[in-house]
């Protein structure tokens, strides 16, 4: 049985294509059932996120399976296959396993290490499990992918640092304040990055927002958006001491906040720490403010440097993660190939044969007055018994191997008789003699 992957991602397709092939999250039953009703497709999982659409399936015939999956994607979304095909990638065997492990571990993401993808694949698998389109192979495969992702997460620092300026600011604030839930954010001026950062602070628990702007109406508008308080620009220093985190991005040509101002503010705050983030160019806040006790000033360049070094760290961690993936592929592949019929029959036979030999030896050792002739007959008898016993399962296995769900039997046999997952090569050879 083979694992086949067909899909497209942000690396191969633009958003115009991706949105056309996306599957609606709440209507997965129809496409999943359609997939498993295709000839030779026995199991299927559909992963559909804003950055990728992928189908994982099992099929006996690799090339045929891939072709069917491609055709399915095109037909289901009513796109000509010629349009879709250049964006599609296909994997099978070890490459398919590596691909899915890498995707789950967020090594193939647009932002390497982003945490959402694992949850999205878990949801996708959830649908397949609910509609019973995933079976023994994909179940085990995806659970393995989850555990690989977990290993990567715990053993590397791939997701431990912020890779956007706004997130970097939030992480810094957490290293200063620990808990943001009683902290107030002040926005001075407006600007996309400033608002984005303010949103991040609110999402991370910040208590409230104050907004000030040279145009009071704009401040009011923005304050309303954030459910905060608008402050007149001239009253800035009457309110500044109430803010713990200050985001500044005015168009002022000179510094609007200097060290003296901040010293006064700090006195009113009883030296409670403050975190200033200066996003404006030219800068709004005098860099000397950073020298005031318990005050931390970061400019947009500082934050960008943090992001750059985090990205570099992620790239280094990604190498470790790739090693983990490689290790795990070997293990899983071993299991997958053990589902093949021939080695299973060999293993089953040798398990019986070993037992027969051992028991026979024991009997002969205790029963010394047997003639060589009688010993031979005993040997023949035991051989005949196990051959008779093994005949029906062997032929059933060979028959189902022609097209049915042999992997189910194989897995069951291996568990019931405690057979090794990967029999040595030479035993396979023996059977073919």
């Amino acid at each position, binding site marked *: 049985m083979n694992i086949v992957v067909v899909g497209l991602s942000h690396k191969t397709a633009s958003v115009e294509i991706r949105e056309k092939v996306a599957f609606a999250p709440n209507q997965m039953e129809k496409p999943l059932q359609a997939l498993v009703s295709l000839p030779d497709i026995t199991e299927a999982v559909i992963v559909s996120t804003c950055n990728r659409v992928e189908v994982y399936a099992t099929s006996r015939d690799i090339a045929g399976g891939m072709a069917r999956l491609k055709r399915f994607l095109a037909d289901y979304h009513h796109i000509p296959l010629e349009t879709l095909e250049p964006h599609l990638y296909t994997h099978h065997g070890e490459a398919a396993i590596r691909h899915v492990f890498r995707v789950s571990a967020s090594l193939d993401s647009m932002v390497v290490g982003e945490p959402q993808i694992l949850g999205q694949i878990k949801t996708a698998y959830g649908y397949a499990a609910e509609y019973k389109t995933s079976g023994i192979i994909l179940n085990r495969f995806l659970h393995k992918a989850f555990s690989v992702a977990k290993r990567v997460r715990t053993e590397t620092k791939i997701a431990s640092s912020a890779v956007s300026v706004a997130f970097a600011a939030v992480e810094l604030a957490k290293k*200063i304040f620990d808990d943001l839930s009683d902290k107030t954010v002040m926005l001075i001026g407006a600007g996309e990055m400033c608002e984005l950062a303010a949103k991040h602070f609110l999402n991370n628990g910040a208590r409230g927002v104050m907004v000030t702007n040279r145009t009071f109406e704009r401040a009011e508008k923005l304050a309303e958006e954030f459910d905060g308080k608008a402050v007149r620009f001239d009253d800035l220093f009457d309110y500044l001491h109430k803010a713990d985190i200050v985001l500044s991005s005015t168009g002022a040509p000179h510094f609007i906040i200097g060290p003296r101002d901040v010293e006064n503010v700090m006195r009113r705050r009883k030296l409670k720490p403050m975190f200033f983030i200066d996003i404006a160019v030219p800068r709004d806040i005098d860099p000397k403010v950073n020298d005031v006790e318990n005050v931390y000033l970061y400019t947009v360049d500082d934050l960008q440097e943090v992001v750059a070094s985090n990205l570099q760290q992620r790239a280094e961690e990604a190498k470790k993660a790739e090693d983990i993936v490689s290790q795990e592929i070997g293990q899983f592949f071993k299991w997958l190939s053990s589902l093949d019929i021939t080695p299973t029959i060999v293993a089953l036979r040798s398990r019986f044969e070993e037992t027969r030999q051992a028991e026979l030896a024991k009997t002969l050792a205790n029963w010394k007055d047997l003639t060589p002739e009688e010993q031979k007959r005993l040997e023949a008898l035991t051989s005949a018994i196990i051959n008779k016993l093994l005949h029906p399962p062997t032929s059933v296995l060979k028959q189902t191997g022609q097209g049915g769900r042999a992997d189910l039997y194989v897995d069951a046999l291996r568990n019931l008789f405690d057979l090794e997952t990967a029999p040595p090569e030479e035993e396979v050879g023996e059977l073919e003699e």
Partner: protein
Amino acid sequence: MNAVLFYSTLGIYFVATVAYLAYLIKPRETLGQASRWLITAGFLLHCAFTLDRYLEAGRTPITNLHESLSFFSLSIVGVFIIIERKYKVFILGSFVTPVALILMLVSTIFPTAITPLNPALKSKWLAVHTTVAFFGYATFAVAFGAAIMYLIQEHFLKSKKLGAMYQKLPSLDKLDDINYRCLTFGFPLLTLAIISGAIWAETAWGTYWSWDPKETWSLITWFVYAALLHGRLTTGWRGKKAAILAIIGFFVLLFTFIGVNLLLPGLHSAQSLDFLARTKKSSFPIWKPIVSHPDFPDGN
């Protein structure tokens, strides 16, 4: 038996310290858990050692430098375990357990023999005074560890050098909070220690306060921490200033505890000085009581 307990404690503290230092390099949850178990096991063994010694000597074992250093170490580990559980910062152990280990190591330098207690000092106040004092010292030792961490983290944030160490250290607020919490517990303990000491002095020597160096330095230590507490409560000294004062306070405290005994003659230092005078032929003057009191016999 006693020596076995002592050296097994020392051994476990050593392993626990190594584990905590390893945690500093590789902050894995399991390593932190393991370190926590180790230090807790060491603490229980240390308690057993102290109890055994108590039964053997028939008094609180804090009467010579060996016992005192060991008890100091025990209190630090005890206070650390409580604080660490409350704040869930394994990494604090990387800064505090080495202090406890070093104190234990230093205590091995001093003679371990149980010496007969100066009859004047035999009192229930011995247990009260010393235990309270040592737990006070221990809270300040943990505050010291947190303050060092604060200064390191503050340096990273100010200079914008946000390396691996910055990632591992807790937030400034948390460290400052630990510092403050320790102060609010340590200061009353220190105050109690001084008061109970004065009462004990009154029963032993007939005078509450005799300005011997230990008393003087205890008072200096008390003033340093009083200043810190006052500053915190009124003008909001916090963060860096508070951390620096906690570090200064701890050094003054260490001097009060060890330096005074070794360098300045006085009522508290009888045994250690005797030991030094006898064994090292040191230039220290053979101790004579500054306060002459009929109940208080000569130095040996």
